């Protein structure tokens, strides 16, 4: 089957991108993103395009996840050096919008014990909903550490009205291999969701936050 992006092209682009980023030091760790240009797609009538994908290598290692847990989960969180809050701590917020908003701002994502999740609308009101940080479920058979890694490794992509889709898949401190793997997985997954697959793809570039786009396709 015809190759759309050869292994060599991918590595060349990733290496160029990383080299360039090293040449000009920034005060922050630049994000690496894939930019898709789409074609044969009409946003007025074709189905909207969005989804989530779990990457192999964590693109946002600094992401802060807080556990809202029952006794068992809080013990596990403490043992693993993960921030946590229990039902009592949540009740203390007293459904105060300002406090809930502050809590939402403090962390990037939340995971909660199933029993606790069911109480969140009543305990906190819609504050976490509004912030887009409603917790994901945590059962007792899940490995907490693994679930946190899963949350950190999952990215969301969404195309609005313009025929361009940008997906953050890593950062410049990652190895070329890790980046290549994340990019490989993302491209294959996204294309599999397009109605006409590669016929809907006009171009693919990768770039760092401040860098020059490197063309892949």
């Amino acid at each position: 089957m015809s190759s759309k992006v050869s292994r060599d092209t991918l590595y060349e682009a990733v290496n160029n991108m990383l080299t360039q980023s090293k040449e000009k030091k920034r005060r922050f760790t630049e994000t690496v993103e894939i930019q898709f240009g789409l074609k044969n797609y009409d946003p007025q009538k074709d189905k909207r395009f969005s989804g989530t994908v779990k990457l192999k290598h964590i693109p946002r290692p600094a992401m802060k996840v807080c556990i809202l847990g029952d006794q068992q989960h809080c013990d596990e969180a403490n043992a693993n050096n993960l921030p946590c809050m229990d039902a009592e701590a949540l009740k203390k917020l007293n459904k105060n919008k300002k406090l809930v908003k502050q809590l939402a701002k403090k962390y990037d994502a939340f995971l909660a014990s199933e029993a606790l999740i069911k109480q969140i609308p009543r305990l906190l009101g819609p504050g976490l909903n509004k912030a887009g940080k409603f917790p994901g479920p945590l059962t007792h058979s899940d490995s907490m550490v693994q679930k946190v890694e899963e949350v950190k490794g999952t990215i969301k992509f969404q195309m609005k009205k313009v025929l361009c889709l940008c997906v953050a898949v890593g950062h410049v401190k990652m190895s070329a291999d890790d980046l290549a793997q994340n990019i490989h997985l993302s491209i294959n997954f996204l294309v599999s969701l397009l109605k006409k697959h590669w016929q809907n793809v006009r171009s693919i570039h990768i770039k760092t936050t401040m860098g020059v786009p490197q063309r892949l396709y």
Partner: protein
Amino acid sequence: MSKLENRSEVQDIIEIDVSQDGDVCNQDELNTLYQQPYFCSARKAVGLEKLYILHVDCEWKSKKLAAALSNHSVHLTSTDTLDKISTFIAHDQTIVDVHFDPVNLNCVLTGSSDGSIRVWDIRNPEKCSQEFRDDTDQKIKPFLSFDINCNGTLLCGGTEKVKSDTHLFLWDTRSPKVLAAYSEFHEDDISHVQFHPTSPNTLASCSTDCLVNIYDLNEKDEDDALQFCLNTETTCGRLQWLGYDMKTKQESISVTTSTENVQIWDVEEASPKHIFSREKIADALRRKKSETCFAIRCFQRGEGQDPLLLAGSNTPNRGCLRMLKMSEGVLEPFAILFDEKGGNSQTIRGAAFNQVSGQVVSGGEDGIINVWMPGEVKQVASNNTRKVKTEVLSKKFGGAHGSKKPYSK
């Protein structure tokens, strides 16, 4: 140069080969698996131009069908013959959904990204009889979905994310003034809203923020209206109330994600009771390539009957449209919807299901509407040798076992 030994993990990124797409087994095996016979009782193109059918709704009692098209018009036909009753232009922007009024059977409602929901009397569709809008400020908030409740008293519209807000609007159908405007419940586009089929104040909404929210609209305070919040952990496309689960004693709901997965939830729980991935759906369909398979609609059936999943593949010349039964977390082949005249590769965008008769209506991007009926078609030659009469076998849809109860399997 560097780490050559790890490079073998990443292969070339290649084309998705659909030239050999198709079923994993032969026609005979498929017929054995898909026990419920269905045939195409009517088929019509909505026009000569290339138009997409975006949404379909049916008023089964009076046998009417409304199809919303990509040229912003609504096409009204009979559900039996698909003969056109009328066509009218409803909006000047994309129509996001179409619904018959469940009480006023002569009324059909359309919602649009132009920020309005309009009511049309189908006997006189030149001018809309009523319009509902956000009258709270001047900014247009494009709708992505709307619904009317089972007793026709409440209307709800869900919007796209505009700047940093996303809204749920409610109207009492007797007044164009906004009854309630909620903006705290979702953080991204509200992709679908649906009222509970029999409880007039129960509403569900889903969003690309990954949440499905269940509301009790008897609560006037925004903060108290949210009853349950289900985190699907992926972007949601559509939801469907599936009825009361006798086993778990809870209302259940299906969520079709933007990644072509289907999740089944009990509304009071914190995680889904079943997840059907795109691969599982392709397997159940007996298809080779999951990349060409789509989860189209979930259909609720009568009490005690498992819901159905309408799914298919749009590979040109090698596509299919089928229904799977969702029972106890297992997907089983149920019925093949085969259009002899072609169009089995149409990307289906709208569908409706009649719980009583088992009829299915589908419409899609080729501009073709199909009506499917349970049962078999028998070819009968009439006296005029040029014509071939088709006769429907009168038995009910009991499949090979000939049972009298509908959907006894």
